[in-house]
């Protein structure tokens, strides 16, 4: 999936006045690319990712996913885009604590009514991709942060999305675990035909991407690795 961001703005009304978190950001990501967006804490990385993920709507500007404008779409269309076309990985993993590892990965398929009859097999295959087949029946809370994040990645891939968005996926992990997780993301990007947009404030993690952008004063500035 290719991504195009045009004159994107996101303003928040706060008691201290209007906060221009994203202020005329532009970005193009080709299908199958892997980019990292860096920026200091509070600069608007999550906000940008929520906009890309159809989770939030911009104040102004457009986002094209596979050349289709999505910010104007109605909520039920955006729901479907989130469900079928986008995988989201959160900094805090956000797995459902009442479900087992396997159930967490199957959930998006149930929500989307996809892969009927082969959901478990697919979930197991995804678990293999992230290297945690043996944890299938564990509850997420019994797993380490790194393991939980791998499960979250597997869940994000459940419906074969064209775009994987990762919000500081290594933000809560130590250096070694971060490195391993980045390798998982790298290999997923190479093998699963998925475009990967990751935000992070960790240069090491960012260095795994093909390209790095910097979010500063609400604008994106790109460089080559």
């Amino acid at each position, binding site marked *: 999936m290719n991504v195009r961001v045009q004159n994107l703005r996101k303003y928040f009304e706060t008691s201290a006045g209007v906060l221009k978190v994203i202020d005329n950001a532009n970005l193009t990501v080709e299908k199958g690319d892997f980019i990292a967006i860096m920026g200091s804490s509070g600069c608007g990385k999550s906000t940008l990712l929520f906009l890309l993920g159809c989770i*939030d709507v911009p104040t102004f500007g457009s986002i094209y996913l596979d050349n289709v404008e999505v910010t104007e779409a109605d909520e039920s269309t955006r*729901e479907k885009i989130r469900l079928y076309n986008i*995988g989201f990985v959160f900094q805090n993993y956000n797995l459902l604590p009442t*479900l087992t590892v396997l159930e967490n990965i199957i*959930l*998006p398929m*149930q929500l*989307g009514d996809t892969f009927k009859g082969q959901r478990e097999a697919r979930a197991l295959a995804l678990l293999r991709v992230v290297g945690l087949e043996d944890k299938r029946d564990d509850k997420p809370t019994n797993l380490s942060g790194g393991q939980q994040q791998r499960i979250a990645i597997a869940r994000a891939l459940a419906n074969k999305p064209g775009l994987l968005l990762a919000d500081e996926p290594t933000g809560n992990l130590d250096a070694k675990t971060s490195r391993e997780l980045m390798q998982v993301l790298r290999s997923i990007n190479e093998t699963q035909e998925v475009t990967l947009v990751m935000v992070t404030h960790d240069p090491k993690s960012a260095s795994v991407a093909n390209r790095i952008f910097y979010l500063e004063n609400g604008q994106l500035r790109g460089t080559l690795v």
Partner: protein
Amino acid sequence: MFVFISLAQKNVTRKKERSALTIIGVLLAVAATISLVSIAEGLYERLNYEINLQDVDIYVLPKSSSFLPAGSMGAIGSGSLIVSREYINQIKSIAGVKDVTGITRLLATAGKEKVGVVVWGIIPDKMNIFFPKIEIQEGDFFQKTNDLIIGPQISRELKIDIENQFPISQVNFNIVGKTYPVYSFEDYACFISLDDALTVQRTQGVQEIWVQVADDSSSGEIDNIIKTIRKEMKDVTVKTKVEYLGDANHFVALVRLLQYAISAIGILIAITASMNTMLMSTYERMDEFGTLRAIGASRFFIFSMVLFESLFLSFIGGILGVLLGFLGSGLFNDAIVTLLKLSFPVSKVTFRLIIEALMLSIGVGLLGALIPAFIASRMEIIKALRWE
């Protein structure tokens, strides 16, 4: 397809204490409702049983008499509306009429404890015709003035029997017979002749005229007789047995409604309790709703999930409440039966009541969850995700 159901089910076991409290809230409301309303159900059974003790095809009542509970229970509310005595013979002469009696009920007080006793006035030789199920176990039917037949329970209660006297409004009646128990209010009643009853009451009118039709299987015949009565007697209301029963049931419906109204307080508390639980758990899990929405779950999905969670709890509460309601109703019944020394039950947990109680619990679950489900499903995803 129905993932939200399994998710909801898993959620209710998360905070066990809180879930248990909600269940208890619903349980108590349902149990209280059942205990209370089972009395109306018992009354319904009782009234129908009572009326079916009477072998009557047509009831002739005073004009514009509102419903008076049938049978002995009606004595208290009989009021002053009466039907002219002349009508008894007039109706008897209508073609197709087999038997007619005037009926009057009055209330006497008896014994040291001044127990209220219902006394039926009926034409002497008509008693076994219109009350075929009430048989004499000792003595005989009344024949002479101031003869009285006593019910077995009141006889035992007041320790008075055949040969004893029974005072009604300063007139002493001689107990000449005792009936077999029929396990209804008649066991606590007495029977005297209609003449005596009217003398005691100092009136020339009866409260009801009961009519038996020769061919009581022919509704056409019954209709004809009713038409004739209506034509000849303008100041009466005429009812078939079915209509009479219908009035009784209408009365019970009112009682039932009243009892539901009383239990409404408990139900409101249950709704509040379940709403409180659902609100708390909704706000606690806002980030989870945000996550679900972010990965593609619809608003409807979230709404249904919260709703089902609440329904689970309240349905479990409903089922347990029915069980406790059985127990409560039984205890209630035993207490009243013992207290009033009754020979028959006063309350009954009917199938219909159980269904109503379960529907009530579902209603409690729905109402309690509506607002929390709305909040959870309408919350902006980014706010939900950033929820503390």
